[in-house]
């Protein structure tokens, strides 16, 4: 995800004094990151406090006013059983913003552990584990998810586990290549000479030094996790009714857009679009800040 370089005017002056502060300041200077972060923050606020400022109960139906077009009363109109679309869009951010970050967290933890193991031990462990991971990566995520969810049944936990485990190999690959470079450095040799255990060397010595690539990969994966959760919900394999989730709402209402009821799907679609783009802009900013 490095197509768009951040807008930092002259990356040459980024010297590494106080690495954390340096990263923080270059993030603040990156317009890409700030815009993306603001969008994400907006949706997180909606997920946390949405029900307090949503004008209606997102689950309350009102059959008489079903499929009403946008008006001053219902800003985004109402859906087929009269639920207020505006309130549903606001509260609809909650489930996807719970499931996608948890899936990303699982992927990061599992992927980091696997990447450290394969990168540190190399040899047979690396060969065997890496081949298995590559085999997993060859199958499209949607297909893996479809199979697993058919076998295990639909629930938020299944979605988190499926997406987490499908993304873990990708993070493992990134971590592994970073570890391969790190393990040749003197501090690793020093730790080995001190007879530190392999676990200590991996997690205490090497891990802190490979945090930047992990951070970049995690933010990028978060964007893909939102993509995947939204898609699975749209397919009926993700978040389940009666949640006002965006993907789920689109799948319930898109059958009627031929009849001109555009407001039942457009705002949910725009919500997903803005969240995904926001996360990706932020990820791009993080990438720029850590690589300049």
């Amino acid at each position, binding site marked *: 995800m490095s*197509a768009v370089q951040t807008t930092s005017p002259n990356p040459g002056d980024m010297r590494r004094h106080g690495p954390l502060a340096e990263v923080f300041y270059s993030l603040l200077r990156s317009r890409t990151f700030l815009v993306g972060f603001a969008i994400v923050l907006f949706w997180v606020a909606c997920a946390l406090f949405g029900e307090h400022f949503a004008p209606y109960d997102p689950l309350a139906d009102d059959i008489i006013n079903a499929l009403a077009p946008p008006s001053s009363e219902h800003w985004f109109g109402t859906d087929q059983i009269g639920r207020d679309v505006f309130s549903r869009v606001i509260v609809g951010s909650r489930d996807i913003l719970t499931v996608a970050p948890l899936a990303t967290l699982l992927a990061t933890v599992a992927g980091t552990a696997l990447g450290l193991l394969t990168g540190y031990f190399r040899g047979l462990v690396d060969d065997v584990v890496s081949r298995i991971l590559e085999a997993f990566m060859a199958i499209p995520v949607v297909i893996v998810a479809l199979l697993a969810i058919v076998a295990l049944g639909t629930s938020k936990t299944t979605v988190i586990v499926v997406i987490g485990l499908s993304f873990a190999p990708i993070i493992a690959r990134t971590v592994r290549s970073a570890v391969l470079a790190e393990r040749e450095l003197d501090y690793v040799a020093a730790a080995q000479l001190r007879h530190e255990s392999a676990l200590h060397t991996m997690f205490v010595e090497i891990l802190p030094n490979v945090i930047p690539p992990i951070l970049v990969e995690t933010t990028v994966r978060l964007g893909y996790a939102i993509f995947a959760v939204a898609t699975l919900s749209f397919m009926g394999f993700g978040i389940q009714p009666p949640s006002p989730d965006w993907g789920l709402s689109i799948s319930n209402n898109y059958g009627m857009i031929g009849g*001109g009821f555009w407001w039942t799907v457009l705002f949910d679609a725009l919500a997903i679009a803005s969240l*995904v783009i926001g996360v990706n802009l932020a990820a791009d900013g993080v990438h720029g800040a850590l690589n300049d």
Partner: protein
Amino acid sequence: MVFLGGQVLPGNVGRAILGPFADQRAVDTLNHTLGVDRPLLTQYWSWISNFVQGDMGTSYIFRSPVAPFVIDALGNSMKLAAVAFVLVVPIGILGGVVAALNLNRPLDRIISLGGLSVTVLPEFVTGIILILIFGVWLRWLPISAAWPRDAGFFTQLYYLILPSLPLFLVLFGYIARMARSGMIEALDSDYTRTAVLKGLPWRTVIWRHVLRNALLPTITVIATQTGYLIGGLVVIETLFRYQGIGSLIFTAARGKDFPTLESGILTIGIVYAVATLVADFLYSVLNPRIRLGSDQ
């Protein structure tokens, strides 16, 4: 790697069979008639050997052989994928090349940022927005991909434009980005400088020296996107009610129709493996250095 992928696919399916049936005693009789209560290895062997002979088993839902469904659906999906590819490959490459030639100017920013933005959006989101714009508001294009019976080539094409656009958007960003970075690298290289200093016209330098080197990685990317495209097909075909392999798998998954599901997924695995092989082959044909490297 592809071989392993192919080996793992049926393994997953075996587990998928066991999962939902494991604790249902009521369906034991049904299981027996379907033959799914035999040891897993036996089932797997008879299934895979039948598959190789073109017998994909009998659908649980339709109570008829799976093979005709899968073959029809694959044909339909390939039509859709072909339309998307024919549109995206030249336009994506062109976008990347134009962006690289205007590096850091506004045009480059628009192409890069626009490409990045549409690439990260889920297909059903772009699909819905495109349906609303072109199908509902402008009424230029049909909102369903199901064309009338006996439709000719151009009518089918007309019905396929809208469904192929979301796939186009997702792939455009990837292809344009690869073409752009390939171009930038090639423009920056010593051989380009030599060609310019030799006094060759700029147009010749671009066509003969830069493009040939810049587009190699792009070809690999296009091939690796096949797997991605297949995932996208599942969504797009559901959204547009199109009878392709993606919607076949989707229906089978919802109805727990395992023979259809397995055959559909194995077929996709084979298509993916073939696409990857073709890409490797193309790459080595176009890049003489690869062949040199393998001799040493």
